[in-house]
């Protein structure tokens, strides 16, 4: 290769002007993005970065809504089944608890982590980061939280649970009277919020916030 390495390597600010595609290792020069635009890798088509159309304030408001909706989705019963005048309803915790007592502890742990612990952590961490990002500051623990958020990646599965609830309702409907409960609506709302957040490129927070001078 007769390409000389850019002097960027040592200069921190010049390194900010480059982007490396994580799927094919191609080096790109960074272009400023307008709101809602995204940059794609010329070689493999991966999304390099995305400029969200939403400001930190809007995102913070959405996160607070998500927290509220998540609490409701977790605490309220999801569906009620009826048979011969008997009624049974279940919350997320009933689901986890029955799996634990019914010899499927592995499933109980998986469900508890992916449907409760991880989503809740994600919501709190994002909320904390955004609270400070509103004024361009880095929250205490910024580095640790950003790394943890990245690692949590695909391990929150609330949206899969919503589809699972739908399938369960259809299956149960064949034999029982099924009544949807408020929990399922809260889950539907949560799914909508998750979709919005899926389009947000959080790594930009690294560039948009400044470390506070001690």
């Amino acid at each position: 290769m007769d390409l000389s390495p850019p002097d960027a390597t040592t200069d921190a600010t010049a390194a900010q002007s480059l982007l490396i595609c994580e799927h094919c290792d191609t080096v790109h020069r960074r272009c400023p993005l307008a709101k809602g635009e995204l940059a794609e890798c010329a070689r493999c088509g991966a999304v390099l970065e995305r400029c969200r159309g939403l400001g930190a304030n809007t995102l913070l408001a959405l996160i607070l809504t998500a927290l509220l909706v998540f609490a409701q989705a977790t605490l309220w019963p999801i569906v009620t089944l009826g048979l011969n005048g008997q009624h049974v309803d279940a919350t997320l915790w009933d689901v986890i608890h029955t799996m634990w007592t019914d010899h499927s502890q592995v499933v109980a742990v998986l469900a508890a982590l992916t449907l409760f612990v991880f989503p809740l952590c994600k919501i709190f961490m994002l909320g904390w980061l955004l609270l400070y990002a509103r004024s361009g500051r880095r929250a205490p623990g910024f580095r640790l939280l950003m790394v943890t958020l990245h690692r949590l990646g695909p391990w929150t599965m609330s949206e899969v649970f919503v589809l699972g609830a739908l399938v369960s309702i259809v299956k149960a409907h064949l034999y029982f009277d099924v009544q949807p409960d408020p929990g399922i609506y809260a889950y539907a709302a949560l799914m909508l919020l998750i979709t919005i957040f899926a389009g947000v490129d959080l790594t930009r927070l690294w560039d948009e916030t400044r470390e506070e001078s001690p």
Partner: protein
Amino acid sequence: MSAWPRAAELGLIGCHVCGQVCGMTDADDGTLACPRCGSTLHRRKPAAYARCWALLIAAFLMYIPANILPIMRTASLGDIDDNTILSGVVELWVKGSPGLAVIVFCASIVVPMLKFLALGTLLISSRRGSSWARRQRTQLYRLVELIGYWSMLDVFVVALLTALVRFGYFSLVEPLPGVVFFGLTVVLTMFASMCFDPRLIWDGKEDSDD
């Protein structure tokens, strides 16, 4: 000479966690930490082939009992009916929800199979340094990452039905070991795809299609 320089050729490395661009030399691999987020920097994910193969094979070993063993028992009025993943799909189809049956079929059968085939293909072709359809293979990897966790669908269905159908002698649903194996399959395939490094797809000889 290629139109698009790669980080390894320029002595650069991109942080996987925060995207920071860092300079490095050959000796640095695995010892350098990202100045911005503190994660260890790797030119390529460490032991990607070995880890990915091991997890993929483990997942496949779990996938066999997951399909053969029943995942759920329905007991009503002394009548016992054990369901496997496939019979659950057939039941949905026959009892009048073909649309949902297709969704469950995709999540529980097509997606895991696709993961095994896709990751297997990616591992073998990258190892050979094949230049065949590199862009498409990278897209395949992204697809696997994107849809992988939807396979949990059946696990949640069994969990929810177990919690709901508790009418004693009249009707009862119990989880059976198949569902545990299936849950483990999904988790292991997710780990497998995380261990694979898509940059390996592009590491072989450059070809005219590039």
